[in-house]
């Protein structure tokens, strides 16, 4: 008998361990749920970690008001399936309250505004730990992120003042008003997430699979048209294409890719042979070479 785990089982064990530490070390944790595949995998890991009990934290969805309909349908289904509590933080509300200001101009997006609503929601509900599905392989600035990421009372991340993280000993001690972001799937890659979805037979929103959609080409990305959020400009020609999405972000800034992949297996094949990183199709990351770092300092996921 060989006592070795496959790498996916080892990653699963690590993530479950981290989630249980969160439940043990914090008063009021939450799981940030975006509707994307990474946060979906997190929900399934949470179920395993605490089964047969329900996981002891709510799902928090920061709703930009610009979501794909498929994301919302899936979210509501999953909440029911898990018997989970759902808390929604609304960017729309932050805008009408005046705490968030809608971006102006051609490439306006609500992505940056999520930060405001997220921090407001954490404060209002008095959450002291928010688990997110970010992975270190996604982006350079994230390669240095800790599992337990300390945020000051303004929700800010200070790259120079992170706690050393040794062995599996996570330190969630904090002062009143401070909180933590925790990233249980830090060590997973995009391929690991897909393989896990395949191995565990986890259902996904329809957006991830190949479908017909009316899109325009904007800044080199295929963007879904929408009567209010993505109005077709004079120089743009909408056309119906066979596409799927690699991430489930905000509709106006999430680029689709042309694809016939309509099953998880076909997607894995596509991911394995593609040569562009998944964030490459998100317009917000291309603004500057260090854009993720800038947003993280301000309290982004």
């Amino acid at each position: 008998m060989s006592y070795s785990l496959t790498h996916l089982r080892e990653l699963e064990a690590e993530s479950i361990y981290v989630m249980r530490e969160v439940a043990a070390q914090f008063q009021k944790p939450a799981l940030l749920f975006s509707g994307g595949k990474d946060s979906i995998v997190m929900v399934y890991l949470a179920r395993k970690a605490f089964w047969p009990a329900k996981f002891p934290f709510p799902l928090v969805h920061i709703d930009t008001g610009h979501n794909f309909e498929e994301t919302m349908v899936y979210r509501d289904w999953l909440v029911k399936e898990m018997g989970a509590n759902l808390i929604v933080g609304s960017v729309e509300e932050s805008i009408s309250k005046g705490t968030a200001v809608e971006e102006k101009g051609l490439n306006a997006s609500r992505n940056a505004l999520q930060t405001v609503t997220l921090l407001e929601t954490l404060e209002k509900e008095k959450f002291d730990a928010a688990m997110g599905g970010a992975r270190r392989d996604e982006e350079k600035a994230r390669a240095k992120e800790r599992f337990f990421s300390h945020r000051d009372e303004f929700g800010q991340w200070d790259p120079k003042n992170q706690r050393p993280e040794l062995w599996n000993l996570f330190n969630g001690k904090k002062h009143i008003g401070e909180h933590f972001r925790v990233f249980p799937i830090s060590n997973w890659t995009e391929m690991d997430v897909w393989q896990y979805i395949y191995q565990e037979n986890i259902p996904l929103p329809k957006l991830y699979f190949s479908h017909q959609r009316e899109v325009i080409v904007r800044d080199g990305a295929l963007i879904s048209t929408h009567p209010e959020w993505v109005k077709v400009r004079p120089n743009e020609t909408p056309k119906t294409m066979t596409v799927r999405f690699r991430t489930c972000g905000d509709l106006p800034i999430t680029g689709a890719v042309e694809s016939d992949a309509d099953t998880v297996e076909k997607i894995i094949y596509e991911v394995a042979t593609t040569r562009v990183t998944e964030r490459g199709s998100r317009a917000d990351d291309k603004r500057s070479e260090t854009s993720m770092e800038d947003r993280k300092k301000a309290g982004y996921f």
Partner: protein
Amino acid sequence: MEHLVQDGKFDHHGYLNMELLRFTTAGSVDDGKSTLIGRLLYDSKSIFQDQLEAIEKSSKSRGEDYVNLALLTDGLRSEREQGITIDVAYRYFSTPKRKFIIADTPGHIQYTRNMVTGASTANLAIILVDARHGVVEQTYRHSFIASLLQIPHIVICINKMDLVDYSKEKYDEVVEQFRHFASKLDVQDVRFIPISALLGDNVVDRSTKMPWYEGPTLMYTLETVHIGSDHNLIDTRFPVQHVIRPMSNEYHDYRGYAGRVAGGVLKPGDEVMHLPSGITTKIAAIKTIDGDLAEAYPPQSVTITLEDDVDISRGDMIVRENNVPKIGQDIDIMVCWMDDKNPLRLNGKYSIRHTTRDARCVIKEILYKVDVNTLHRIQDVDSLALNEIGRVKIRTTVPLFYDEYRRNRNTGSLIIIDEGSNTTVGAAMIIE
């Protein structure tokens, strides 16, 4: 990832059966560490098109006439400005045999704490030596840290062989120098590989320039080094992390003890003992949502149920009656100090975390500190500053259930936490 695609099909079986190897690379600005990592990522086809384009663009704008693979691993802007790596960065790649996690750490003495952090979870350490300069002060430092943290496998890469005409004599000289020094260290498995990270010799592809070297390439070593024995499978240790009580009709009296196996193999029916109570009972089942398990071993996260009702909470430990850990409050440790604001002080009081147990401790005695460049012991000290390593006696407020770090990295390690700032200020390895 392309390597997993054959005849238009993805090799699921292959991917689902890979092992995970965590390794650390320590090095300083000039020894080619970032280039080596870039080379591993590039030659194993782990770089995406847009990443490659981005570094080609950056290289050009910096006026460099070749694609600077080191840029792949330079992260935060402040580092990019200074041209150095200041924190632990994690990188990922895979080959058909294994998935790899690299803890990329800076090698300068002021970053000892980062090296220690990266080393704490590693199965293997790559230590780079510049063939032109041979074994230098930082080689001693890196090797000492690797041995202190008990990284099971050490690979000494003698880099920049292209700059010494691929000379066997130069290589032999470095190996000899290192062997002489390593006799003072507690290391089990050391290997040597002559490479050129810049040109790719013996990194992924075998060098044609060094026919005298008959050993494996670095990549082959990473893919095949035996890691199955890196965990302790002898001493049963199950620190209770969380108690699971569903409070539902279906599982009315269910009490599960969740945790990560820190040593040994657990099986249903095993006679076990609860610490601190000393009460013995049997493992009833190892539960998962996918069904009960026949056994559990490190580093699995499982939930166990017991045959008898015992009052168990987080921080307790399940062990075998005939193989108990040490239980005590007076503990001898090696500490790496990580706080840039305050030194570790004699008689200082701190919080500690050991397995899933929280406690406080007082520093009773500082026996000596180690000069990490020469391994000399310096006595008569009453504090340890940032990046200093020393042997210390502590007394804890409650008994800990521990093993020597050499025997078990999970039950032999603890962190020290400052009670004012709440930050992690020390990493400790239990000696006895």
